[in-house]
């Protein structure tokens, strides 16, 4: 059954005001195009969950989409501070709930696995545990020692960008696979954006690479260049220059940020228009030379 829709339709149908949203991807495959569409559709009061909020959530917070942030590392990776989120937190305008990477990802794992909570070994650092009441301790019934537990995270909507998917949502990812699978299984509704929509036979030729099965997916959207300025392994490089540029834009104040959003988010109809607007110079700078894996033999049975 085809679940192919436009990005506009996927967002308007599945993302509602007040939702808890998880845009997946650890540095890799961050679905910027979907976040921009959410900004254009002016969603409000969202709880934005991501281990690393990255520029995408900085932009969504700047655009007024967010009520609360759930995170474990709030920086501009490789550059420095995530200025908008940081100043909203420092001024008390944005609610936040904080974890370490491991406890954040453990929450997703619990959500994905249908567990009531999930244990972790103690680390000796207890300040975060005191700051966030979601951290609890229980006694391990086998050893009698205390372990740290966190509850499941079950986002209303998970958005996952992938290299390729078929029309029914069977999705294949290679490169850094961060928390994509866990987000897909933990979320109530799942939107897949893909660089390429391929025939089901392509997916079935390499089933081990399918991270997310189509039957848990609600919408599939064909969005080439969805991840820019993040990247898609084998398709285009990370735009590190833009990550540095955002540091300047966000340091320059609300007007510079508004000008950016007006030009690059509100000012374009969709990702295709955004891609064209980037222009041939940027696109060729981010091009990558192919390096193919050796084929594997699944055998005829």
């Amino acid at each position, binding site marked *: 059954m085809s679940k192919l829709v436009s990005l506009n339709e996927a967002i308007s149908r599945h993302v509602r005001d007040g939702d808890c949203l998880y845009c997946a991807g650890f540095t890799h495959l961050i679905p910027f195009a979907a976040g921009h569409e959410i900004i254009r559709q002016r969603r409000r009061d969202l709880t934005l969950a991501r281990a690393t909020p990255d520029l995408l959530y900085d932009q969504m917070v700047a655009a007024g989409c967010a009520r609360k942030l759930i995170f474990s590392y709030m920086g501009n990776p490789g550059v420095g501070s995530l200025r908008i989120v*940081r100043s909203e*937190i420092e001024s008390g305008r944005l609610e936040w709930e904080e974890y370490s990477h491991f406890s954040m*990802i453990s929450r997703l794992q619990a959500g994905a696995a249908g567990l009531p909570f999930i244990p972790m070994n103690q*680390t000796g650092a207890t300040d*975060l545990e005191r*700051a966030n009441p979601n951290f609890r301790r229980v006694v391990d019934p086998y050893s009698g020692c205390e372990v740290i537990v966190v509850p499941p995270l079950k986002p209303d909507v998970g958005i996952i960008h992938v290299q390729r998917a078929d029309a029914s949502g069977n999705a294949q990812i290679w490169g850094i696979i961060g928390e994509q699978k866990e987000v897909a299984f933990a979320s109530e509704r799942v939107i897949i954006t893909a660089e390429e929509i391929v025939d089901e036979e392509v997916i079935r030729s390499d089933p081990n690479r399918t991270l997310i099965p189509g039957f848990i997916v609600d919408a599939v959207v064909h969005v080439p260049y969805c991840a820019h300025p993040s990247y898609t392994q084998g398709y285009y490089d990370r735009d590190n220059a833009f990550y540095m540029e955002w540091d300047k834009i966000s340091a320059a104040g609300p007007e510079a940020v508004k000008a950016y959003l007006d030009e690059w988010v509100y000012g374009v109809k969709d990702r295709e228009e955004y891609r064209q607007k980037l222009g041939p110079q940027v696109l060729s700078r981010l091009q990558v030379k192919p390096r193919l894996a050796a084929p594997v033999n699944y055998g005829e049975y």
Partner: protein
Amino acid sequence: MTTYTSSELMIINSARLLRDGDSVFVGVGLPNLACNLARRTHAPNLLMIYEAGVIGARPARLPLSIGDPTLVTGAASVCSMYDIFTLYLQRGNVDVGFLGGAQIDRYGNINATAIGSYDHPKVRLPGSGGSQEIAAWANRCYIMTPHQKRRFPEKVDFVTSAGFLDGKGRRSGPQAVVTDLGILSPDETGELVLTALHPGATVEQARANTGWQLKIAEHLDFTEPPSAEELRILRTELDPTGIYLHR
């Protein structure tokens, strides 16, 4: 006489702490340079593991983010974040972790979360990321940081990653803090004391730039100056455009 920057000094001295065959949890920036330098000199069998879920990375270019695609191409294995924190880190399969932080205190506790109060921070920092668990579960932990008084308070405002806590009984913490003046290591109570000085640095400088009464080890070592070969690899192979070396 060869000159070098304080970043180069910290990278080279950190690289020397790695042993051939170590599995090391690598962060971007200076730790990445230290690990790649060690792999190209005395530790060719160093297994580099990146938090993003990459095992046995052999980056062909300088990674500019913790999830740079160059880490994946040619790596031995890629796994999910849940796997990297459980199968590798929590299970005890990581020998060495590198950490940084805005503040490091007398007992090697690290603050990467907030300056001032947590609820109303004066300065909000990025937070733990992976460092809470790296500090706890890597078998040896090293910290790299410039030696400045504001970075070395008597007590951190927030314990993001545990060192020896208050020094009373906790058994694990960082093995060494490599600064641009020398190396601090824990004594038997877990208190960081000055155990080595870099060429040209003095005890007085180290004391003046530390926020507690810094003790000096009975046998104070002096580190070897960076060699021409170490500097050449760093400058011409690893960071030719000076992104992290700031040359």
